């Protein structure tokens, strides 16, 4: 696949972020996103992304470029890249996951959701609230009731850290 596209003249796309920055990428890189692919199929070469901010878009373009050049030999290199890619703060991960969801990039969604899940699984509900910036909407009585109904899940020590 890659060789046939290279012999032809490379088709380019322009992506525009929510903060109005423009990025030129190869069409073959962009179409890993289902959202972009659908627009390209409809003849668009200029793609406004009103839900994706520049900071996240730069990282995602990096990801798409890396994964567009996947071969049998650079498997390890991509694994290292992915590991570094998700080694960031929760807030960054949340921005990326929202963007990946909007762009419909399923392998990236998978990786981000799995990373977030792995990082919160041992945490306390209080830590999870802070990480997700959620205000508790239970009354103390309601919360006590839920804790009581699931008492076995509250046995032991939990991770209170926010990273």
């Amino acid at each position: 696949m890659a060789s046939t596209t290279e012999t032809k003249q490379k088709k380019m796309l322009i992506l525009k972020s929510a903060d109005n920055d423009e990025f030129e990428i190869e069409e073959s890189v962009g179409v890993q996103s289902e959202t972009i692919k659908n627009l390209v199929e409809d003849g668009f070469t200029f793609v406004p992304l009103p839900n994706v901010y520049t900071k996240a878009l730069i990282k995602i373009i990096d990801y798409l470029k890396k994964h567009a050049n996947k071969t049998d030999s650079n498997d390890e290199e991509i694994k290292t890249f992915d590991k570094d890619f998700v080694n960031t703060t929760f807030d960054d991960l949340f921005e990326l996951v929202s963007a990946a969801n909007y762009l419909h990039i399923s392998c990236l969604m998978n990786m981000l959701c799995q990373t977030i899940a792995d990082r919160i699984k041992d945490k306390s509900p209080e830590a999870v609230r802070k990480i997700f910036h959620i205000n508790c909407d239970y009354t103390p009585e309601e919360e006590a009731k839920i804790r009581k109904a699931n008492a076995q899940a509250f046995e032991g020590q939990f991770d209170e850290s926010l990273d």
Partner: protein
Amino acid sequence: MDVVDEAIVVHFHEEIVADILSRLPVRSLLRFKCVTKFWETLISKPYFKTKHLNHAKNGQNSQKFLICQKCPKDRIFSFYSCPLSSVQLVEDVQKLDCPSNSKPLRCAIHCCYDGLAIITVCDKIVDETPILLLWNPSTRESIVLQHPQFLPEEFSSLGLAYDSISGDYKILIIHNFDYNHGYQRPSEILALKSGLWRETDKHPCGIQYVLSGMHSLAFAHEAFHWIGKTKTNYLLVSFTISSEVYGEIPLPEEICLMRNINIGVSVLDGMLCVYSTYESHQEEGTFKLWVMKDYSVKESWIALFTIVDPEIYIAVPKYRFSDGELLFWCIHYQCGTNVFRTSREPSVLWPRGGHQNGFAFTENLISPKLLT
């Protein structure tokens, strides 16, 4: 929460939250129900539970082993849940409270499917009919099932599975051929939504069922399977879950030629496997296992491996680890107790004890109450 920086507040769609949370262990999800009402509602939704189960089926960390064992001191039964992420069963074991009764004197796990188990529990040793329960050991929820006409006995087998055509879980109970009275007790089936046990049609060819009481019915390719016997031969009986049609599958030639053996059928990695324990000519206990690569094709039975161990009287495979190693439940000749071991290592993985049995299951949130 003090001051929240509005710029970083992420308003996730339910879809994204569901995608993240569906990858969590059940224990984390039960705890995170108290994060916010929105999460609690989401975690309780049927579509979320199905999504979670689908992730769990492929996740190493969601595979658990449910063990039931009698304590030699006070003779009370207990349940334990162990992770199957490594062969070290005794690491990170959780003791589970027995549903319906905290100190049962008789207990048995009959089968596990998805993350649901069928168990019987009894308070007294004699003069008491045990109660039959459908139990989710991950969420600890259970419901009491109606009694079938014939309760499970020592040589009965049960199977639980999902019938995708009727969208209902079904339980099948079959009994060993009664040689004393020359009688085959009828099999019964329970569709959970109907709540009533119903006798199934008899096997058209009058095959005798050969059950050791150590196996559950093997469910694969939309059918339950167990060992049957004609006048001349052993064979595999199949019974489709939705249309309730019987079928017959030939066993490997070698099994049919053996004498005085114990045969069983199970499912490993979605494939049917049969196995037998027999005495080879040096009078050594030998266990041999075959898998059926292509369903219902006799030629596709492949001998997977053989273990020679004079200690083994009966062995039943329970789980295949990702590296191919098998977890077994065995009864030993000398002491008569049952133990768990793996195919490569004869050492015992779990403290010996009386009346122990175990089944692999996938942790999930499915609520038995909502299946009826």
